[in-house]
């Protein structure tokens, strides 16, 4: 509990953070930037887990443990993403989203 701060305010902040992430995800043209946006989105949701755990069910630890898992998954994901990006860069010398459109159709 943060004295004087209701759950609403925290949730508002995470929502904003979430949508900033979404915005970045959609508009950025660089794969690494996209990855960064994903981190933002993930963090926004992690915070929600934790906050709701703290505010509503302080006796439990589910939220916290989920947060740990998410962080672990995020780490794995980032590692993979970075390796893919690097490999991609070797193949096509670019990490621009528009150059990866060969997947289409």
């Amino acid at each position: 509990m943060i004295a004087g701060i209701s759950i609403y305010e925290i949730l508002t902040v995470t929502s904003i953070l979430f949508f900033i992430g979404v915005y970045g995800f959609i508009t950025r043209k660089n794969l690494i930037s996209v990855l960064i946006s994903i981190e933002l989105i993930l963090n926004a949701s992690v915070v929600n887990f934790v906050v709701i755990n703290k505010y509503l069910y302080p006796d439990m630890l589910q939220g916290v443990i989920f947060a740990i898992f998410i962080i672990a998954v995020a780490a794995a994901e980032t590692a993979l993403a970075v390796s893919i990006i690097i490999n991609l860069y070797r193949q096509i010398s670019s990490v621009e989203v528009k150059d990866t459109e060969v997947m289409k159709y």
Partner: protein
Amino acid sequence: MNISYTILIPLIPLAVFLLLGLNSKRIKPAISGYIGVLGLSISAALSFYTAYQYFFVNGKVDGVYQTFVNKSVWMHFTETLHIDMGVLIDPISVMMLIVVSIVSLMVHIYSRGYMKGDDGYTRFFAYLSLFTFSMYGLVLATNLFQIYIFWELVGVSSFLLIGYYYTKPSAVSAAKKAFIVTRFADLGFLIGILIMGYFAGTYDFETLNNPEGSVILSWASTSFMGLSVITWALLLIFMGGAGKSAMFPLHIWLPDAMEGPTPVSALIHAATMVVAGVYLVARLFPMFYFVEHGFALNVVAYIGAFSSLFAAIIAITQTDIKRVLAFSTMSQIGYMMLALGVSGYDGHEGVGYMASMFHLFTHAMFKALLFLGAGSVIHAVHSNYLKDMGGLRKYMPITNITFLIAALAISGVPPFAGFWSKDEILVAAFEHNMLIYYVGVFVAGLTAFYMFRLYFGIFWGKEQTYKHPPHESPISMTFPLLVLALLSVVGGFIPFGEFVSADRMGFEGHLNYPLAAIATGVGLVGILLAWVFYKKENSLSDIYAKAFGPFYKWTSDKFYFDEIYLFVTKKILFNGVSRPFAWFDRNVVDGTMNLIGNSTVKTSNKIKGLQSGKFQDYAFSFVMGAVIIALVFIYLWTN
């Protein structure tokens, strides 16, 4: 009377056709000629035997000639409506058997000489046999449908024979024209049969023709556009007959049909097939006479009279001798139609009917003779045109004499055959319709004139310089000429009225002297004029041709009927209907289908853009979708 053997009369030529047609490469030409002649001789002998049996032995019961029928069902439609195949023996069918047998046999014999050395000799005889088979079948038909079946077969053999020289484009197009024009007429025939089949409930001649039968008595029960449906049926059937018999305005195929070998013209386009229309009307005569008080019969009379006059006028100006004969044929058939049209039914009233059949008979003889004679001439000078001929009497005495006999016969000079039959026709016309009578007399004069124009032009006139000196034809060709000439001389003395009459009773024909004198006089005037114009080489004909000016031009161009038809078919049907149809099909119907296809492709191409492979676009859509769904749920829940 047992008539079951008569079935052999058509079947023997059919067997000959199959034999020659299937083995056309294996049988030697000489042998095939003999096979053809032999087969037909048997048929002819059977025909004569039948005629003898019928007319003199047991055809007449209580003074009335009976009808003998032997048939079996060929195809069922309903219990009452079916197509039968069989033979029907009555005076006119027997008479036609004789005509077909004589002319066909003569033509077979003649062809052995005329066609000698031709590539398709065997094929020719096969076709001739096919034709003879079909013609016998037509003559012996027991019902409308059977006659239609053989009608078509006759048409197709005519097509094959006209197109016999199939490498010649003119022959091919003439054959096509003949077939298509008659086919168009047969369309009317077929519709007539359909109407008749439905409203009369039968195709059978015996039932239809019975004057006390239900069909004739109840003709007024159904009407359509002011006329009885039966009358319509008869008119449509007559349309078929008019097509085959080259009546105006369906005559255009006949002159062109002269592209075929000359024996064919003699057999098909002079003596037998073209009179099928007359035979058809005669076959249904009681119906024509009784239904709607002879309305349809009047139509027959006027069309016959007009065609007769029309063709006679054109014949004067033609220069191709076969075409002159073709128009002459048309004119004479018009005569027969006219005679049928003015005929009554009972006793001597039916003189027109008798006269028509009589004229059919005599005309078959002398017109076949004329054609065969013309063939002999063509054989000698290798040309169809009058301008290439002249003075041939010295080279071809037999042809000359026989041709002269035929010309006298057709001009109605006594005592030749044509005089007797033509006289009867004029008597019938005189008794019923003066207008038609005048036309008949005028045509008689014209006939004499153009016939002798032809005769003088060929055998007299200026002598041409021939590359090969012409010579008389071989015996195989002159023998038929002599036989037919003999028949043309004596044919008129047959007491026809005793054998053939509308009511089957028979009556005694007698000469009407004033009328006969007038007709003969007119004929002689025609001959005289021809003598003056054409006997010696002179410029009279050219002067008069100039005097008539445009009229002469029209006439020699056959009043532009070919052009009118050509315009209708080429410009209107071909370009005006068919081309738009084809265009419509390619562009509108198919275009619609292609449009559907293409627009699908285009749409999918457009939609494909949405599936861009850019994950950010997907994300955008995903978010948007999620938001929209959320909004919808919020909306739903808050209400």
